[in-house]
């Protein structure tokens, strides 16, 4: 794809995203009904959960790309793995912060070491470590291989995050979509927010991937000159 059509696609994605965000805010704050027990505070859910799902998707992309690095030994996959890990960390930081803000009035504490919260924090820290490791390995080929292995191992925590509230007793709310806890009138708002954050994930992945490709081009250029 040429650079021109790439930037056109980015513009289209940006416009879709801008309208999508407005629609998501409208659905979450105006269209969705007020929840009976939590009141308006429950509206955090419309962003907290879709961002968490986008974060998990991002880590899954990192896992798949890391596997491809080991199979194909191609830098393209390494760039994708890095982009996915970084965006996953950003999304999970938001998830931990918004979850904590929601927890204070509901559980009366900012944080508790429940299985879901602990596993989420560990997952976020593992990928933060993944990003740090990249800075300490000079050789790009070795860096790609070491980080691919680390990314695959880090992803082992993802099923724990996902299933923790199903496997163990947890203070964290149970999965509402599966247990039917989300009323049909709340579902449209949730699905709009979910779709918007998936588009946002694609948009950010493209931008971060492009940045890494440029950095790679710069490194190659510097090597040629030096």
């Amino acid at each position, binding site marked *: 794809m040429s650079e021109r059509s790439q930037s056109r696609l980015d513009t289209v994605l940006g416009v879709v995203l801008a309208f999508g965000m407005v629609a998501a805010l409208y659905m979450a704050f105006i269209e969705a009904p007020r929840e009976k027990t939590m009141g308006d505070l429950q509206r955090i859910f419309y962003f907290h959960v879709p961002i968490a799902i986008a974060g998990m998707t991002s880590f899954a992309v990192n896992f798949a790309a890391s596997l491809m690095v080991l199979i194909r030994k191609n830098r393209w996959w390494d760039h994708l793995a890095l982009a996915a890990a970084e965006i996953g960390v950003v999304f999970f930081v938001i998830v931990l912060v918004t979850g904590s803000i929601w927890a*204070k009035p509901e559980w009366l504490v900012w944080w508790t070491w429940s299985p879901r919260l602990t596993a989420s924090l560990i997952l976020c820290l593992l990928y933060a470590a993944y990003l740090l490791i990249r800075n300490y390995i000079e050789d790009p080929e070795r860096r790609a291989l070491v980080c691919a292995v680390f990314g695959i191992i880090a992803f082992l925590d993802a099923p724990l995050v996902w299933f923790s509230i199903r496997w163990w007793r947890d203070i964290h709310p149970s999965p509402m979509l599966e247990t039917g806890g989300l009323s049909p009138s709340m579902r449209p708002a949730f699905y709009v927010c979910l779709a918007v954050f998936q588009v946002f994930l694609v948009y950010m992945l493209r931008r971060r991937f492009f940045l890494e490709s*440029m950095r790679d081009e710069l490194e190659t250029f510097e090597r040629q000159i030096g």
Partner: protein
Amino acid sequence: MDKMHYLFAAFLAIWIILSIYLFSLHSREKKIRKEIERLKSSRQSAVGNRQ
């Protein structure tokens, strides 16, 4: 603190974190683009001097 304040704080946190990240992406992109341009022009001038 009223529950609405927590809701406001949560949404503020989302937009602040996302804005910081998007801004950092943009500034890193700009910096690399500038560096590539600088290297390209210095290489062109070096080739010109040799000729």
